[in-house]
């Protein structure tokens, strides 16, 4: 069904539909039964308003009969129209019943004639529409339009939230930036090592690291950092073979001396010398 209708819609060349002699029995040239009827009606060569529906029904039925004889596939709606026209024809020929129910045969015929007139009218209108000068086919716009330059005016946006956030953030930033953390003075390892090296050069025998540190440190608050750095520096110097250190027990004073060229010294406990 769909396929058949579509084949009609794809539009056979218009000239086939547009009033070739009557006995070309080729239903595919028509856009459905109404189109076929309209073509047949035109052959009566009278104003569609005065057309004989009876004659038209006959023409249609003859056409369909001919089509069936040559075994043309007919879409169902052609047959429905044929049946309806046969019915209408019989109604038109018979005297009207005394109590008609539904539309009379005359009314049905008029309605059909009106449908045909309407289809014809819209086709005529379509024709005239398509014959109007068409854009880009018959009439043309400016071929080389000149652009309108655009001057942009900025419109700035910002929200109250942006404003408050910005204000609070920078005020706060400045306040916090003025809070000073006292810088801790640290005796660096390099400093400790340099002074230890100097000290080792001066003392040939065991000296006490603690005493040395106490005399060295001016500011008592620096005692811890000086002690820690010196001890670390001392370990490093021992590892490098520059000096020896010695401690009798935990928390006992630490002694150091320049590394002796020949083996272990007499007085110290050798187990504590660090390699």
């Amino acid at each position: 069904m769909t396929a058949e209708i579509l084949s009609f819609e794809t539009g056979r060349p218009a000239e086939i539909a547009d009033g070739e002699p009557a006995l070309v029995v080729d239903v595919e040239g028509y856009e459905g039964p109404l189109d076929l009827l309209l073509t047949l009606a035109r052959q009566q060569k009278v104003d569609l308003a005065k057309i004989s529906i009876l004659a038209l029904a006959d023409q249609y039925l003859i056409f369909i009969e001919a089509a069936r004889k040559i075994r043309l596939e007919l879409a169902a709606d052609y047959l429905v129209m044929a049946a309806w026209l046969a019915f209408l024809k019989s109604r038109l020929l018979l005297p009207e019943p005394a109590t008609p129910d539904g539309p009379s045969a005359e009314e049905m015929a008029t309605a059909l004639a009106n449908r045909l007139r309407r289809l014809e009218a819209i086709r005529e209108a379509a024709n005239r529409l398509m014959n109007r000068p068409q854009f880009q086919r018959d009439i043309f716009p400016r071929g080389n339009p000149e652009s309108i330059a655009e001057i942009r005016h900025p419109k700035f946006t910002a929200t109250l939230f942006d404003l408050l956030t910005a204000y609070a953030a920078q005020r706060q930033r400045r306040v916090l930036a003025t809070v000073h953390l006292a810088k801790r003075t640290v005796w660096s390892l390099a400093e400790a090592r340099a002074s230890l090296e100097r000290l080792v050069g001066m003392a040939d025998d065991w000296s006490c690291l603690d005493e040395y540190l106490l005399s060295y440190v001016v500011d008592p608050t620096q005692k811890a950092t000086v002690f820690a750095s010196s001890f670390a520096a001392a370990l490093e110097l021992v590892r490098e073979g520059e000096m020896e250190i010695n401690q009798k027990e935990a928390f006992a004073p630490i002694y150091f001396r320049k590394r002796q060229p020949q083996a272990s010294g007499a007085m110290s406990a050798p187990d504590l010398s660090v390699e």
Partner: protein
Amino acid sequence: MASLAEKRMEDAEETPVDAQARPEELRLLEALLFASAEPIDQAALAKRMPDGVDIKVALAQLQAEYASRGVNLVRVANKWTFRTAGDLSWLMTRESTETRRLSRAAIEVLAIIAYHQPVTRAEIEEIRGVITSKGTLDVLLETGWIRPRGRRKTPGRPLTFGTTEAFLSQFSLEALGDLPGLEELKGTGLLDSRLPSGFSVPTPSDDVALREDEDPLEIGDNLELLLAPAADPEPEGGDGN
């Protein structure tokens, strides 16, 4: 050059296009409209004109001035634009722009939509006596000349179709009232397509405002699906073109 300009001055005696006498606003309108390929509406033009210019009068003057020229000032869908004169189409052959040839069915459907809008698919089919393939409507939608307007407030809420500004522009119509033969059609009552002639208004309207028997399209209405007739399960069916 100078000599030609002088020659022009001699001609000017016969047809004095008096530069002084010609209102400046005509120059401005001319420039704006000439430069643009797209139609411009009166409000937009007025915005660019100096204060106190009666834009309507100026446009009418300009239109009259150009009426006999090779380029005419035309109004399309309430917008103004210069276009080449219709009678010069023979001159304007352009290889590149090949106008799409619509099928006979598509042309008919387009005409029915134009003259009967807002119109539903069923009404189109009633007039033509044939089922309208989805392909035909697709092709027409693709041209941009028709658009689904809304839904008819009847059972099934079918889509209503109407024409667009591009349609008016394509056929050089100022408004739908300029459709050829419209008056005759109205006179014969043939525009009254709807059989139950309840609320029939036999004048086509492309007013964007919906009629009272129309509902708006819903957001998300999928045209692809809507256009496929409910009775026709294979939407791929046939390409009407």
